[in-house]
């Protein structure tokens, strides 16, 4: 027997004699792992702990060491129960009016794991004593003990675990590789756009304008690959639109943002008037409307004091 084999056997024996406690220690180490630098790297360690430990402890507490599911059923139950405990923990926190945060979830799961680990460990110790005392007389226990021993020593069982681990690693590697390959294939350029908007929330309601007039701030975002020419104009809306200001011709480069202001003089009286700011792209045709592409926003303004609805007519 080599030194390494003896060492492995000791580790294996230490694990088997108190696996619930070791699993609990692993889970409680999550807090320390979070404090470590290069957290992204540790995610690889955190995910299996979070998704296996609570469920494994549940199986240990429910079945004891004998008669518990092994192989695929163990893996399936352990994962799903771990996931479900986190759901039930969230529900419990909600019922107790405690906010669900990383800390509260962790501590409630840690408490749960502690209880499950104590039960699982107690059952492990008790069953071992019972088997030691009564295995001779109880064929059921003898059968369980034989199964347990054969599972831990049987090369076929070890091969099965090894094969599953290899399959998981291979499968996940193919998925990651495939995703990497796909994301590095050339993609069609995403469709660009242009947007015109007010930059404050003042325009939500009719704006009262004093004798000095007011300034309405706006922004043009040109998220296109090419430079384009635009005409920017402002007008009073009504039965016949009347310009407020001299239009501007703008040439906007790719992915550029322009800020601007419309200086509006005080309107006559206290009536409410509508101002429309329009941006029109020059020498282009909108495929939907077959017209020149245009964008517009508007705002209502009125002279100082309360606006009068009689001005509507």
């Amino acid at each position, binding site marked *: 027997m080599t030194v390494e084999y003896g060492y492995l056997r000791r580790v294996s024996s230490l694990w088997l004699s108190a696996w619930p406690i070791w699993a609990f220690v692993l889970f409680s180490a999550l807090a320390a792992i979070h404090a470590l630098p290069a957290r992204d790297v540790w995610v690889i360690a955190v995910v299996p702990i979070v998704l296996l430990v609570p469920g494994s402890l549940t199986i240990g507490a429910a079945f004891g060491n004998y008669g518990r599911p092994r192989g695929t059923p163990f893996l399936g139950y352990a994962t799903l129960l771990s996931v479900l405990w986190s*759901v039930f923990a969230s529900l419990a926190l909600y019922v107790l009016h405690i906010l669900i945060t990383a800390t509260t979830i962790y501590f409630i799961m840690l408490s749960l794991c502690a209880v499950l680990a104590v039960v699982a460990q107690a059952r492990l110790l008790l069953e071992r004593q019972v088997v030691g005392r009564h295995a001779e007389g109880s064929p059921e226990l003898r059968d369980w003990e034989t199964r347990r021993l054969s599972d831990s020593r049987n090369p076929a069982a070890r091969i099965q675990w090894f094969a599953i681990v290899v399959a998981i690693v291979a499968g996940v590697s193919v998925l990651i590789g495939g995703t990497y390959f796909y994301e590095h294939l050339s993609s069609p350029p995403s469709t660009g756009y242009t947007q015109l908007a007010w930059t404050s929330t003042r325009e939500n309601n009719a704006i009262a304008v004093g004798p000095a007039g007011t300034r309405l701030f706006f922004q043009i975002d040109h998220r296109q690959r090419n430079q384009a020419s635009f005409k920017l104009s402002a007008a009073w809306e009504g039965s016949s639109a009347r310009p407020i200001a001299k239009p501007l011709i703008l040439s906007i480069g790719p992915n550029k943002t322009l800020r601007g202001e419309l200086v509006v003089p005080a309107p006559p009286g206290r009536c409410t008037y509508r101002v429309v700011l329009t941006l029109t792209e020059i020498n282009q045709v909108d495929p939907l409307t077959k017209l020149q592409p245009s964008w517009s926003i508007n705002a209502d303004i009125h002279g100082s004091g309360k606006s009068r609805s009689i001005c509507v007519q």
Partner: protein
Amino acid sequence: VAAIAYSYHIGEYHQTSQSEFTWFWVGMLLLTLPLIGIIARAGTPNALRTALLTLYAILTYAPKLLRNPSSPVYHDEFAHWRDTYEILHTGKLFSPNPVIPITARYPGLHAATAALVNATGLSIWHAATVLLVLCHVLLVLGIASLGEGLGMTNRIAALAAILYSFNSSFLYFDTEFAYESMAVTLVVWTLVAYTQAIRSRSMRERAASCFLTVLLSAGVIVTHHLSTVSLLLIMTVIALALSMPWLARTGGWVRTASTAWGLALAAIVMAGFWFVVVAPSTFTYLSPYLAHGLSQLMSDAQGTGAARQLFSASLSPWWEQRSAYLVVVFALGLAVGGLLLIRAKLRDGSLRRGPLRALLISFMLLAVVYFPSVPFILSPAGSEGARRSWAFTWIGLAMLAAASMGWLLDAARRRTSRWSRVSLSIGLTAAISIVMIGGTAAGQNAAYRFPGPFLYGSDARSTTPEELAASAWFSAHFGTGHNLVVDRNSGLIFGSYGLQNFSAPSAGFATWELFLAKSGSLIPPYLLEELRSSNYTYMIVDRRMAYEIPADDTYFTTGEPADLVPSTGKSVFYGRLDKFNSLPWMIKVFQSDNYSIYRLNLPVGRTGYSVRPPSVKGRLVVIP
């Protein structure tokens, strides 16, 4: 996987193309058929078979993973993303969800994803992907474990898992970030624990299995409504079968029957509590699908209804569509074969009265339910429910068909003539390929399965950078939590990433009337009053609704009047959206190429502007 990735790459440039389908299936068949071949071989060691089944399960997640590796794309995924985000940012469950309101009452998936985000620091999407890959793999392994629990050999149980993977929801629907993806897996593992509880001979093992069954069924109940109903039905059928004298009454039948009934009743009580106390809206959400589905099917049968034209607007090629029809034929053939094998076992006495016989007959009944559900696919309201039921009925069908498939494979192996052996093997391979292709084609449409250029009203291809930017601008500018008037597609982004709220339009809240009203005509006063009293403050208008018919035939909600989508191909909203620019109670605060955002200043009576513009002049200044 490279071929699948390449097929998606082709898809990105074309609305639909034969070559994307060809490359996709070349990739899928190359990926899966060799694995299926080794798994099905009688000589494959059990350990290797289980490992290969695990590999098969992981690899079959590739199509969905590559479809949207970094963000939600499907309709329901946006709703579940919002639910998870709310848990992470409010610390509470059950926050209202405007995209699909019922999802908020079933927080299983969202709470689990949020817990994983909290534990690992991963993003919502990446944590969800980890969880969904696990659920997908465990679904396959769960079917195999269930098969072994029903007395099948490792090989036949693995075949059952493979056959289950040919159901129409497996590759895309039950892999999306939605509650059913997790719940289906939980249903299968609940049944594994349930059958273990029924079949275990030792008291301790039975008690522990009962405990697991209760925990897992509680998990299903808090995760998904339809899965809960399906689980309760399956458990009740099994409990009934275990009480039948002809099936199960042997020594100790009272113990097994009482275990089955006890667990079924426990699940029924828990589900009843959840439905009544936590999610009372479940019945109003689910009942229209069944009721309308049935009535439409009756109308179709009497020749008075308008049956769905299968694949009418499908982008998939003819051979995929034909394969979808053949799936039913193959399933029927294999099911009949499975029934004959069970009959033979009953006759020769190898399937004696007892729990195993009762369990097998129960799963046989579950399989048979698949066939009457197929006609529902012709009913517009029933098709969705029928398709969703297949994820459950195929559990039984897979068990039944696996027995036939095993028999066929053995028959091929026993052939002395090499030619007949080879031809039977080729025939089986071809049949498996057709069923895999057809099963997938019968599920999600091509716009869901393949990436592609923008397709108006298609859910999975209608999100654009422009829409994302408009939503981001709105949230940054006005904040979150506003009540919006939106169409279905805009609602997806504004209601999820944008964290805004809206209610689905209905006959009593017909927001489409706003859009339909002609310029100068009256907008129904009740609607304006409803908008004012419910504090609706903004409206999002996508101008494409005036020019295009949505690919999913829905502008606002599934219950909208049918005449909103005329068969003429011309939008009923054509020429009716410009009126919003001049309505006195609406102020346009934003416009991008396709989206306009209006502030609603209600009540109407308090607003207005003069139609006689003043002549005063100002100036325009632009700062580069």
